């Protein structure tokens, strides 16, 4: 009986030991939510970084999911409150509530911040600490179809920048020829309809006053603002945008520009490449497409014709209440290398907030990247888009009025300015 008891104890002890060994060998699993399920180049880049990390860190495993951005935001907003958010997730700087709510872990102790571009850090800096890994950065560009623009009889000058009246002429000629001048749709996004107006306002006002406008310290009834809005309304009335503008989705507006029916121009952030450089069979740009990049038009008596918006978009953040911060931090640290910055630029043909070495970038879209660099040479950058500044009711009014109603021709300049001032002007 005694020996049987000893035997049972031995078996039990062995089982415990075996379980303990197994637990020790089991890697710590972290969860990661990434955007870009429908953008192959970006998706591949993220998946490759995770694979590299897992290969170099056997003690960590990553459960990676690609989820559309809107769904990430909705799910994360519930999950962070209940302690169930993923260890690492996708976020953009236009969601500051995660920062102010204390749901994000500062990266200072996990990532070597010297590996991030200095201009990109402010997008994620809060109370002196950096909270996001700025993978995706972009400038707002005006893409155009070289052949169609030539066909309607407009010559793009060597500066690649039309004047205010020159752009209006392009719109009129396009509309007269039955070619949609500006491909744009706001069916599933809160910002595209405001790109042309706000880039024009930036060039008209200069960085200082434009910043005041975005911070609610300058009225939309300022004569300069009204002048630009009136110019834009003229373009709208001349037929600048597609008739299906209100329901056209971002992906569809790409297709509209470089496939059917085709348009003269396409204002879009430089993340344009995520969709455009997909294969033509899956809705990407045909390889023979005569793509050009011009500057947004210079405004009459504009204070800053060389101004341009630069912003950080897709980033990865750590959940403050995550249980596996060591692995999560190590994952982000492994992503933040110059080599990975180069790979991002090569594969995605898009700027990055990670430091990179342009001399080592060898892209199959080198011509495109050279043209993008040329359009950005000598640019004066303004950091951030309107929705990175606007919050709550102001952001909603921007979405309904500036993004949709004004470019759709549903509302006049005066009414639009009144609504924006009522929602965004400080002290109103």
């Amino acid at each position: 009986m005694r020996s049987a008891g000893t035997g049972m104890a031995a078996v039990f002890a062995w089982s415990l030991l075996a379980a303990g060994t197994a637990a020790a060998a089991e890697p710590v699993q972290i969860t990661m939510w990434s955007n870009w399920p429908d953008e192959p180049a970006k998706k591949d880049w993220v998946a490759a970084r995770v694979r590299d990390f897992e290969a170099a860190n056997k003690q960590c495993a990553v459960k990676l999911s690609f989820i559309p951005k809107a769904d990430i935001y909705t799910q994360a907003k519930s999950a962070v409150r209940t302690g169930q958010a993923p260890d690492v997730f996708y976020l953009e700087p236009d969601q500051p509530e995660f920062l102010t709510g204390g749901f994000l872990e500062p990266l200072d102790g996990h990532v070597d911040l010297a590996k991030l571009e200095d201009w990109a850090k402010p997008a994620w800096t809060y109370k002196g600490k950096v909270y996001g890994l700025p993978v995706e950065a972009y400038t707002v560009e005006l893409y155009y179809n070289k052949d169609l623009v030539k066909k309607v009889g407009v010559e793009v000058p060597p500066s690649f920048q039309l004047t205010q009246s020159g752009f209006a002429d392009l719109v009129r000629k396009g509309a007269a020829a039955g070619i949609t001048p500006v491909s744009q749709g706001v069916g599933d996004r809160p910002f595209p309809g405001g790109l042309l107006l706000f880039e024009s306002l930036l060039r008209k006002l200069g960085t200082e006053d434009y910043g005041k406008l975005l911070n609610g310290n300058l009225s939309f009834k300022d004569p300069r603002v009204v002048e630009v809005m009136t110019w834009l309304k003229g373009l709208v009335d001349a037929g600048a945008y597609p008739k299906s503008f209100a329901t056209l989705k971002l992906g569809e507006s790409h297709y509209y520009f470089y496939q059917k029916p085709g348009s003269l121009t396409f204002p879009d952030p430089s993340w344009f490449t995520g969709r455009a450089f997909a294969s033509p069979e899956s809705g990407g740009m045909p390889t023979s497409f005569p793509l050009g990049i011009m500057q947004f038009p210079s405004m009459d008596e504009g204070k800053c014709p060389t101004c341009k918006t630069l912003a950080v978009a897709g980033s990865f953040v750590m959940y403050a209440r995550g249980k596996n911060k060591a692995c999560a931090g190590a994952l982000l640290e492994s992503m933040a290398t110059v080599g990975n910055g180069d790979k991002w630029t090569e594969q995605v043909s898009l700027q990055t907030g990670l430091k990179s070495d342009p001399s080592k970038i060898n892209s199959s879209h080198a011509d495109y990247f050279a043209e993008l660099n040329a359009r950005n040479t000598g640019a004066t950058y303004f950091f951030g888009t309107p929705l990175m500044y606007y919050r709550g009711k102001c952001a909603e009014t921007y979405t309904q009025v500036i993004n949709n109603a004004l470019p759709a021709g549903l509302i006049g300049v005066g009414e639009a300015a009144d609504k924006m001032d009522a929602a965004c002007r400080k002290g109103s």
Partner: protein
Amino acid sequence: MAGSTALETEAAPLERAPAIGRVSDPRRASWLVLVVFLAPALVIYLGLTAYPAFRTIFDSLFTIEGSERSYVGLANYRDLLGDETFWIAVRNTFVWAFVAPILDVATGLLLALALYAGIPFSRFFRVAWFTPVLLSYVVVAILWMWIYNYDWGVVNEGLRAAGLDALTRSWLGDPNTALAALIVTHAWKWAGFNMVVCLAAIHALPSEVLEAAELDNCGWGAKLRYVIVPMLRPTLLNLYVLAFIGKMKVFDLVWIMTGGGPLWATETVSTYVYKRAFNWNTFDLGYPSAIATVWFGVVCAAVIVLNRVFKSRDRLEY
């Protein structure tokens, strides 16, 4: 004892029954049994319905920023009074709730009458007309976004083919037509449900009354107006109330097709609550909870009022 009859044997327990009391009454269960059977449903109801409802009412008295909450009393309700977007949403939701059910029920009744009248291929149409009920809102929304598409949608293509180019428009992008376009889509989805209920009710009508009407040379129109519809009144009113409640909470279709735009023309209370809770660059659930609480009260009150208004004083007897 050996000589006792079966009747005597069965009568004995009955005589003892008063002494044992309620427990022996086979129609009454013990508390333990009651608890065992009711507990699962009660737990689910309390956890998933009652608690969230009371928690929402409780949260409406706070401002919640991140993990911190501060008591603000009725401030959220005061803010609501001056919230222009909220009142636009209320107006749109009332239009949905009062107008759309008329369209839903009328369409369902017409389809049911068509089937009752025995139109050709009625078996096929019965299935075809009911099919939209089985589709998810996402599918219905995408389908109708195509139908309303400005460039190649069926509606505009039809108008162009008929030489009515001037009438073509961006149906979902025009504030004057967007809400109506959504209501039509919703009616299309639910017409089949109303049709099935109306058809069942028509078949349940007493044939003597209908035959008597026919013997009196009552035409289809008169029969419909003076016989069928009055006798279907309770069914139609119940369908109306059901549709009313559903439309006071309408969200999915609006969110997918227009997101409340253009210019808040299709904003409903539900989409506004969602925006305030999840799209407003804040974690504050206090204000959206206040909207939800107010609307909960409005829906309850409206249903009570409708039931009173529609309560039939004269019962039909046949």
